[in-house]
């Protein structure tokens, strides 16, 4: 089973990124499954309600509070 993460700290991101995440159904406090991460701090694929979304590593770590490295 894929690891799950709770997304928070949306306020750390720039407004455009925040908005796009909202558009795709990702909000403060939502739980997502980590599907794939790429080496060398490459992009990360997460899934929420049957929707897969690709993010940059930096955005993902900011959203997960940088605790789950």
């Amino acid at each position, binding site marked *: 089973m894929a690891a799950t993460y709770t997304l928070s700290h949306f306020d750390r991101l*720039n407004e*455009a*990124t925040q*908005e*796009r*995440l*909202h*558009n*795709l*159904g990702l*909000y403060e406090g939502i739980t997502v499954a980590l*599907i*794939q*991460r*790429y*080496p*060398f*701090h*490459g*992009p990360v*694929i997460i899934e929420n*309600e*049957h*929707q*897969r*979304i*690709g*993010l*940059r590593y*930096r*955005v993902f770590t900011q959203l997960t509070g940088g605790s789950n490295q």
Partner: protein
Amino acid sequence: MTTVALLGNPNTGKTTIFNSLTDKYAYVGNWTGVTVEKKLGQIKNSSVTLVDLPGVYSLNPLTKDEAVVTSYLLNNHPDLILNVTNAGQLKRNLLLTIEVLELGAPVILNLNMIDDLKRQGKYYDPSILEDWLGCKVKTTNARTHEGVATLKADLANLTADQTSSSPLLLDYPPMVKQAIRQATEALVQDYDMNHDFAQWLSIQYINKNKAVRRYALFHDLTPLRSQEKYYDAQDFEGQIFNTRFSFIERLLAAASQTISSANQVELTSKIDRVVTNPVLGLPIFAGIFFLIFKLSFDWVGTPLSDLLDSFISGPLSTWAEQFLTAAGALPVLRSLIVNGLIAGVGGILVFIPQIFVLFACISLLEDSGYMARAALVTDRIMQLIGLNGKSFIPLIIGFGCNVTGIMAARTIEQPKERLITTLISPFMSCSARLPVYSLVVAAFFPKHQALIVLSVYFLGIVVALLVAKGYQLLFGVSDSSVFIVELPQYHLPRFDVIWHGTWDKGKGFVKKAGTVIFAGTVLIWLLSSFSTHGYVTNSSQSFAASLGRQLVPFLAPIGITQWQTIAALFTGILAKEAITSSMMVMFHTSSQAVLISALGQFINPVAAYALLVFILLYAPCFATLGTIKQETGSTKWTIWSLVSSLIIAYGLSWLIFTIGSFLV
């Protein structure tokens, strides 16, 4: 005449719906902002016009393409809005639906991709959705045409009494409600606005909609502008969002039904496990693109192109020549038609099979859902030069043809990143440059042909990356870039969708062959067929030749000392593949072998390599320049593209020639 506006999130199958409702083609793509131009279609057997709006996630625009929708709603009054949603992702799709319903225009809510929802073991009761939202609900699965006929009938039979409706008003917190009411009343009173529109405008303004705030500034809507600070300080935006979101959650909970799932194995996860694998992802990407190139330039495209070429340069030319001679046409006219138009436009038209095969492959990748994954796996590399994964594909396509590459850059959301991608695309060595490389390497580097050609391709990439890095620093493109890709469910590609996509992308090229390239051909023909004494049969006395001779002193520092080569380079601006044929004409030979030995007498290998580099970089061809103009909408950038490549080409060739001559 009745107008229906088609509106919805990206990846909802909106364009497929558009195509099956109308008898006109529209572009199909899977990314935001692909539908750039305004597209109209007539619903079959009716007087209803369908307006296809770009896919947006909300009415608050992030990009220019998204702003199109908001400004359309601000300035037009469609008789009906057809809101297409992805039924499997209804929760987030409804956020946009609410914004639309608040406008008060009649809406049909279309739950498309209903199969995806059923596969999740879920279904929504349409009558509950209709009750809560106050609009008609229609379910479809556009890919299998399920439900499309009923939807079409509904739209075609649209009558006046159906086109009245009252806006949805959610139970916002009291403070927000009061703010909306006050602003609405003031707008109705002082600005003579329609109540529903004023209310929608107020909600959007309070909700920090950038386009609406610009609209309010432009129309000087004081009731809203004077309260802006108050709205923002109270975080009304957040409150509006929460109200909408909890409304949607309650609605979906009420409408939700559990059905026995078809228990289908998750196809998407299975494919994704392979194609987005951290180790295999890039090789698979490379493999797929290698296959596409093989198909376009080796297996299917080129044989067809050769066939077309042998027809145009063979029977067609001969026939035209004979016909014109028989008809007693002047030699000038004969030359214009046979050597100018048929040779020039025909020379471009022979690329059509290759280009269409390439576009078909790209449409197939888009329609299946792979394209978004390709952008993802290449993002890390592109980030290094300030671009994102979506820039990689246009550049790769540029190896086939720069024109198509630049057109593929439309999918990039950030205007600056899109501009940079457009500007560096011409450095990708397109297939039309290959014939002249082959000629030069055969003449000077017979033992290392492949290596030399490869080095030229590689140099093109390096130059493109360096220039991109330069633009990144110049434009200050930095971390603010947004790269979030929606990875849609995989779908089995459908033939008609691919055909629509291919034709829509390819027809631009055909059109260009008839206009820009046609004009350019005539110009070049004039230059190489006339001199100050009028029409000349010998091109060495033409304007092109004298221009070439005059330019010799300027190009001598980079090792190009024959006017014939320079004149040929001019024709290369028209079309790169024309360089070889022009050289043959200028050197008075019809055989490549003779030309190769002729070239060998004039220059040494170092100069030859400098020439290769110059040909690689010196200028985008006519068609590419036309596309840059069309896509950037700016003459300034088009000229800059020409000037900058000339400077870079000259500088680099000079360096290579100077250092090379010193060493050898």
